[in-house]
C-alpha cells in the first residue's frame, strides 16, 4: 500500500556459516554434555518430552567414556561387531569410490562420517524389522552381514546383479535382508515405511519398520504425509532423519534448520522426537532401541534426528570444495564415529591400537577380495554386453502383447546392428 510510512520489506535467504576460503570456527557451537539428557519411560507421552527434540542425546564423553541414563550397556561382542561393521563400511566406500574413478561403474555415494547412524541403528533393530532406507544407508546391509560381493555386483550392474542392471549403482534391493528397494525419488520410502508398519500392526505382527531420509528431504511432501499417518495410526515405525547438514550444495538452512531442529518436526504431529549425536554410536544405538521398544509396545512412532556431518562429497558427481569451507569437516566438533567408538572400547580394555590396525587391514583385504570376485561377473561397461532379454521383464507379472512386440523389435534392431 503506497503512502504507508514503512521501511521496505526484505527477503531472508539463508547462508551457511562458512563458504570456500573461510576458516571454519566452531568455538560458539554449544557442545551438549554427554550423559546430561534424561531418558523417559518408553510409554511417556510425546507432550512430556518436548525438550528432547531440542537437546541432544550423547553417551560418549570427550574421553570416550559412556555416561548417563542413555548408556545402552552393550556387551563387548556387540561393541566390537559394530566397530568392525563401521570399519568395513568405510573400507567398502573407499574402494568402490575408487572403482568409480577407474571407470568400473558410473556413480558412487559414500557415507563417510555417518556410519554410526545406520550401523548402530541396525544393531538395535531386530533382523526381521523392515528397513526403508535412502541411498546413504549401505551400513544397514553391512551390519546385517549381507554379502558385499552382491552389493558390488549391483554397483557394477554386471551379469550377477540380481536387479538385472536396472538400478543406478547403490540403489540396492535386498528382500532377504528386510531391506527395501531404494528409490531415486527422495522421501518416497517414508509413507511406505509407515504403511508397512501399519500393516504389521493391523496383522498383530511383532515386527516394526524404520525409515531413513536426509535433512534436505524433510522438505518433501511425502515426509509430512508420513508423519501425519504415523501419528494418526500410532504406527510402529522409527523415522530417522540423518542431518548431515548438507543436501548436495544446499546447507540445512534451506530445509528449515535456522528456525528449529529436525527432531522438533515431531512436536506438531504429537510424535515422540529425539535429537541424537549421530557420531556417537552408543547414543544412536540407545535412541533406536528406545524407539523400537516404544513401537513394539504400541506406544507409536518416534522421529529421531541424527546430528552428523557429511565428511565427503555428496556423490562422485559432486565437488564440495566449490561450496563449503575446506576445513569444515576436520574442525567439526562431534568428531568421527569410528574414532570415538574405538576410543571407547580401548578405554574398556577390550581393544587396542594393534588390533585396530590389523582389523583395518583385514576389512580392506575383505573388500578387495569381494571386488575381485565381483569383477569375474564383469563391470559396468562389459555389463552392457549381457543379455538384453530381461529388459522387458518385470514390468508386469506376465508380459502383455505390446511388450512382446517391442521386445521382438529390439532384438531385430540388435541383430541388424550386429550386436
Amino acid at each position: 500500500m503506497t503512502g504507508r510510512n514503512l521501511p521496505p520489506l526484505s527477503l531472508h535467504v539463508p547462508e551457511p556459516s562458512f563458504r570456500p576460503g573461510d576458516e571454519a570456527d566452531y568455538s560458539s557451537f554449544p557442545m551438549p554434555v554427554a550423559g546430561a539428557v534424561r531418558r523417559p519411560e518408553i510409554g511417556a507421552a510425546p507432550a512430556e518430552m518436548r525438550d528432547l527434540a531440542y537437546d541432544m542425546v550423547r553417551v560418549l564423553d570427550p574421553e570416550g567414556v559412556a555416561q548417563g541414563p542413555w548408556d545402552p550397556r552393550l556387551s563387548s561382542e556387540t561393541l566390537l561387531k559394530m566397530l568392525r561393521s563401521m570399519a568395513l563400511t568405510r573400507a567398502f566406500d573407499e574402494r568402490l569410490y575408487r572403482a568409480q574413478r577407474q571407470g568400473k561403474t558410473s556413480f558412487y555415494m559414500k557415507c563417510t562420517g555417518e556410519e554410526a547412524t545406520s550401523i548402530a541403528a541396525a544393531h538395535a533393530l531386530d533382523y526381521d524389522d523392515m528397513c526403508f532406507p535412502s541411498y546413504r544407508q549401505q551400513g544397514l546391509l553391512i551390519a546385517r552381514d549381507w554379502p558385499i560381493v552382491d552389493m558390488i555386483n549391483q554397483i557394477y550392474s554386471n551379469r550377477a546383479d540380481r536387479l538385472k542392471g536396472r538400478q543406478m549403482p547403490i540403489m540396492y534391493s535386498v528382500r532377504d535382508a528386510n531391506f527395501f528397494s531404494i528409490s531415486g525419488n527422495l522421501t518416497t520410502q517414508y509413507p511406505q515405511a509407515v504403511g508397512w508398519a501399519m500393516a504389521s500392526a493391523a496383522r498383530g505382527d511383532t515386527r516394526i519398520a524404520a525409515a531413513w531420509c536426509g535433512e534436505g528431504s524433510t522438505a518433501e511432501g511425502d515426509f509430512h504425509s508420513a508423519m501425519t499417518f504415523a501419528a494418526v495410526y500410532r504406527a510402529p515405525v522409527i523415522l530417522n532423519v540423518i542431518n548431515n547438514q548438507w543436501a548436495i550444495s544446499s546447507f540445512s538452512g534451506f530445509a528449515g534448520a535456522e528456525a528449529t531442529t529436525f527432531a522438533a518436526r515431531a512436536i506438531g504431529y504429537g510424535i515422540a522426537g529425539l535429537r541424537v549425536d549421530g557420531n556417537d554410536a552408543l547414543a544412536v544405538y540407545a535412541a533406536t532401541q528406545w524407539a523400537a521398544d516404544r513401537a513394539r509396545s504400541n506406544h507409536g512412532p518416534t522421529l529421531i534426528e541424527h546430528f552428523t556431518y557429511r565428511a565427503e562429497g555428496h556423490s562422485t558427481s559432486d565437488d564440495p570444495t566449490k561450496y563449503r569451507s575446506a576445513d569444515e569437516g576436520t574442525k567439526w566438533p562431534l568428531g568421527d564415529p569410528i574414532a570415538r567408538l574405538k576410543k571407547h572400547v580401548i578405554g574398556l580394555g577390550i581393544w587396542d591400537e594393534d588390533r585396530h590396525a590389523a582389523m583395518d587391514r583385514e576389512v580392506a583385504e575383505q573388500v578387495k577380495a569381494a571386488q575381485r570376485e565381483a569383477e569375474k561377473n564383469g563391470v559396468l561397461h562389459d555389463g552392457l554386453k549381457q543379455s538384453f532379454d530381461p529388459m522387458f521383464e518385470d514390468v508386469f507379472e506376465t508380459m502383455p502383447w505390446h511388450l512382446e512386440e517391442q521386445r521382438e523389435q529390439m532384438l531385430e534392431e540388435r541383430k541388424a546392428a550386429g550386436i
Partner: protein
Amino acid sequence: MNMIQAINSALDVSMERDEGIVVLGEDVGYFGGVFKATEGLQKRYGKTRVFDTPISECGIIGVAVGMATYGLRPVPEIQFADYIYPALDQLVSEAARLRYRSAGEYTAPITVRTPFGGGIFGGQTHSQSPEGIFTHVAGLKTVIPSNPYDAKGLLIAAIEDNDPVIFFEPKRIYNGPFDGHYDRPVAPWSRFPESAVPTGHYRIELGKAKVVREGADVTILCYGTMVHVAKGVVEESGVDAEIVDLRTLVPLDIETVAASVKKTGRCVVVHEATKTAGYGAELSALVQEHCFHWLEAPVQRVTGWDTPYPHSLEWAYFPGPVRLTQALKRVMQD
C-alpha cells in the same frame, strides 16, 4: 444391483476370501464413502481392514505401497480422480516401477479405485478423465467398467491381480446407463440385464474387450460412460456400427479391436478426456498400425475438448450424441 452396489459386492466378496485385502481412503470407513461404495465394510471387517485416512493422497498411496510390500493387498480409494495428482509420484515412480526396479523382489499389488468423468456438474475439479496419464506409464494397468456386472467382475480380477491397477469408475453411470441426452430422464440399472449381478465370486479377465453390439459398417471403440452414448447414437442414427467396449486400456485387447476394424473397415474412437495425446491417439495409432490395409477412411476421434471441464458448459464439453453422430457421418462418407 447398480454399479455402486456391484463395486461394494466385489470388495465384500474379495475381503471375505482374502484377509490381506484392506480398504483405505478419505471417508471410506465409518461413513462408507461419499458415493457409498464401501458402505458396511468397516462394520463387517473391522477398523484395521477398512479405515479412514487423512486428506493426503500422497500418503494414501505411499502407505498402500508399503502395506503391499508387507504382503497385504490394499484397495485405496481416491475420492475423485481429479485428486490423484498429489499421489502421482507414488503411483508413477513407486507403485508402477517397484517390480521392475527390484527385479521382482518387491511388488505393489494395489488397486486404486477412483470415480472419474463428467456429466454431474462437478466443474473442472470433479469431472476429469486422467486415464491417458496412467496408460502412458509402464507398469500400471488401467481398467474402466461400463456396467454393474462388469464392474464387479473386473474389480475382483483387479484386486486379485499382482500388478498395480488403476480402476476408474465412470461416476455418471453409477446409478443407471447414460446415453448423453442430459435433458432426458435416466432409467435405473434395475431395468437393464447388466444389473443381474451374482452375489458370489466371479472374475472378468483383464485385457479382454467386449463386443457389445455387432455391426458391419464401422467400429466404435469406447469405454465407460461413452459405451452408452455410442449405443444410443447407433440406435437413433441407424448406422450399422459395431461397438467395442474396451474394459481394460492396459493391457489392451488388440485382437478384438483389430478383428472388428478389419471387418468393418472404418473406426471411430470415443472418450471423454481431452483430445491431444489422449488414449484415443494411442487407439488411432494402433488401428493404423494393425489395420491400415483394411481401412476405407481415416480414423475419427470423438473426445472432450482440450480445455478444462467447464462447469456451466458441461454439455458443450461432453462428447455427446451430436459429436459422435457427426463423426459417424464423416467416417461413412469416405
